[in-house]
């Protein structure tokens, strides 16, 4: 056992010290965190250019001042202008675009057109649409001669957003988000695929290196081939775990820093608008205390609020289960594939020869990845279930299922199958490896490997 630890140490230290490892370890979290943070920053950092928009058309009169000016855009109502003239000259006149409202606006939805040189941002359109919709609504309501209409409208205004809440068997409820579950499933499945493949291939390359440089002959005169193989596999596993844990830690740190700085700074009062009940309460409060705080929630960027909510929901995922099962499936899945890769490495004389063996090994991994992607659409399907039981695909598929909630018995069965299979594969790989590493110049084939499997010591 002592010798194995010497081997593990060498495999670990030589890899962890490599520049490529250090760079990968530090850059990947930046990349992963930026996938989370970047959309937020983009939202905060969107097109800030001030836009002046000319509102024209016979229908425009009715909507005078219906579209409120925002801090990004000003709406200027122009009477009696020639549409064709304006279309030619609006840019020289300092307008970003022309909003044309025809008189039939309240009956025909397509009666409104926005002319501009560039594609207008979605916010601008949303603002125009919702303002006009509201104004039309108000005017129609006015037609019914309701007393105190404005006050009534104010008090009935309610914002709705559907909250998804998972209830476990004990009745404990946690707020969740399908989007977050999908993201976690995607990242979990893909990361598993990447790590197993990457580090499995490293084992293979290590074995080939030892074989072609003939180091192996010196080593196996000191230790048993199985010890060398296990030492290498475990050493590289530790490299993988080190990298994974640093990734988790750094990603969490980066996301955490961004959440506390950028988001907190620019979104005061997000929480009050977040939960519908509190908005209601707020409104009641506004009614009694007057309008001092009336426009406060409106100031808050609703998209930012969503991002913030996303973060909160992300925290409600069962991270303990996700990370522990990730580590379990990484270790067992890696051991399974690494032993296959080690056997392949031992059977060939150089890396180009590995191709004929790689294909059958790659297929289940890729298949697992495909099923994992499908799992996100339909986590309860029987295909997802079976592929999360089959040991060659279960690490990837199960990681994609867990964020959506998987019964514990299924996880347990899948893990037991996984353990049994990886033990069997390690055992078989060791037999092939033992013979393979000392065979040179022999064209290896599946038939040959099958023969090695049955050789005795």
């Amino acid at each position, binding site marked *: 056992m002592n*010798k194995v630890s*010497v*081997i593990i140490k*060498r495999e670990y230290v*030589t890899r962890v010290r490599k520049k490529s490892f250090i760079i990968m370890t530090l850059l990947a979290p930046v990349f992963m965190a930026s996938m989370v943070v970047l959309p937020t920053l983009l939202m905060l950092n969107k097109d800030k250019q001030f836009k002046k928009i000319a509102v024209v058309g016979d229908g425009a009169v009715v909507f005078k001042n219906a579209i409120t000016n925002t801090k990004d855009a000003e709406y200027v109502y122009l009477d009696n202008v020639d549409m064709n003239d304006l279309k030619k000259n609006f840019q020289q006149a300092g307008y970003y675009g022309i909003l044309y409202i025809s008189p039939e606006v309240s009956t025909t939805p397509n009666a409104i057109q926005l002319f501009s040189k560039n594609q207008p941002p979605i916010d601008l359109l949303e603002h125009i649409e919702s303002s006009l919709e509201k104004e039309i609504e108000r005017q129609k309501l006015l037609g019914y001669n309701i007393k105190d209409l404005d006050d009534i409208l104010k008090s009935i205004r309610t914002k709705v957003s559907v909250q998804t809440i998972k209830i476990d068997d004990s009745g404990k409820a946690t707020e969740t988000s399908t989007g977050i579950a999908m993201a976690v499933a995607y990242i979990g499945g893909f990361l598993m695929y990447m790590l197993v493949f990457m580090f499995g291939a490293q084992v293979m390359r290590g074995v080939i*290196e*030892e074989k072609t*440089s*003939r*180091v*192996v*002959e*010196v*080593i*196996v*005169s*000191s*230790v*048993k*081939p199985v010890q060398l193989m296990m030492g290498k596999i475990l050493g590289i596993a530790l490299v993988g775990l080190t990298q994974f844990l640093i990734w988790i830690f750094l990603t969490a740190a980066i996301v955490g820093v961004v959440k506390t700085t950028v988001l907190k700074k620019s979104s005061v009062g997000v929480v009050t608008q977040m939960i519908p009940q509190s908005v209601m309460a707020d409104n009641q409060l506004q009614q009694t205390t007057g309008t001092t705080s009336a426009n406060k929630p409106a100031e808050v960027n609703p998209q930012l609020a969503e991002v913030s909510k996303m973060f909160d929901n992300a925290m409600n995922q069962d991270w303990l289960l996700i990370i522990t099962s990730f580590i379990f499936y990484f270790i067992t899945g890696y051991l399974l594939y690494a032993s296959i890769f080690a056997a392949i490495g031992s059977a060939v004389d150089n890396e180009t020869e590995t191709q004929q063996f790689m294909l059958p090994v790659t297929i289940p991994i890729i298949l697992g990845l495909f099923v994992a992607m499908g799992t996100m659409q339909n986590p309860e399907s029987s295909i997802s279930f079976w592929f999360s039981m089959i040991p060659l695909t279960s690490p990837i598929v199960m990681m994609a299922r867990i964020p959506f909630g998987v019964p514990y018995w299924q996880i347990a069965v899948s893990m037991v199958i996984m353990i049994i299979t990886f033990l069997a594969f390690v055992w078989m790989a060791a037999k092939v490896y033992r013979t393979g590493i*000392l065979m040179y110049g022999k064209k290896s084939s599946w038939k040959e490997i099958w*023969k090695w499997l049955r050789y*005795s*010591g």
Partner: protein
Amino acid sequence: MSLFEARNVSKQFGSFKALDNVSISVPEQCIYGLLGPNGAGKTTLIRIINQITGPDTGELFLNGKKLMPEDVLSIGYLPEERGLYRKMKVGEQALYFAQLKGLSKAEAMRRLKYWFKKLDIVDWWGKKVEELSKGMQQKVQFIITILHEPRLIIFDEPFTGFDPLNANTIKNEILFLRERGATIIFSTHNMASVEELCDNITLINKAQTILEGSVDEIRRNWAANEYDLVFNGDVKIEENGQYQILKQESDNGISTIRLKTTVTIGTNEILNNLMKSGTIVSFNPALPSMNEIFIRVVESKN
């Protein structure tokens, strides 16, 4: 008493017979030559001694006791195909292999310092192996092989890649190791070094032992009744009832003749006769080179 013994060892790979009932017995503090043409089964036998592979049948003994897995710690092996991690630093690498042979890090460090100094490669400690010349790598590998002070050392072609100077250094180290009590199995195709170093040999051909014994005895027995004779000047002699001429050549005023006595008479009588033909410079019992013996034995078996 023999330090190492292999009894009736056989090994088969599929339908290919690599060793067929081979036995060797290596006396303590002996340099034992393991000879044979390529593919004869030497490497398989060496691997079996190192317990890299197991024999199908047959028994192995170290120091009179059955060879056990932990005995790898008392065996040192320098394979023919040298192997070092190319990207790893020399010192770290040597430490690694020493630890695999059961040395503590501190002890390995102490011994490595001694040997690096002795073989004059101290400056290479922090270099990567790929930066070293072949001879340098050989020295490193040599140190790795003997660092754990094994009782039995197996050298497979230890001199290839060395210049004559370094080859001599290594030869002296091998003799020094023997003096200090090590027993050495020496596999090579270089017959001159067999004559120079080996006490005993075994010649394996096509998985079987075809010749074994002490080098001196083999050479003497192989050429019983043969003599080498050197004359001053251009001398030609005729065969007669007493001897046959095996070889006769003249060059630069010196004539070399090999003859074989056919009757059992004293060498003095023959000399008396020969002295009449010219001035004899030397007269020696013929000792065929191991090279000659190797070629003739293997060819006669094929």
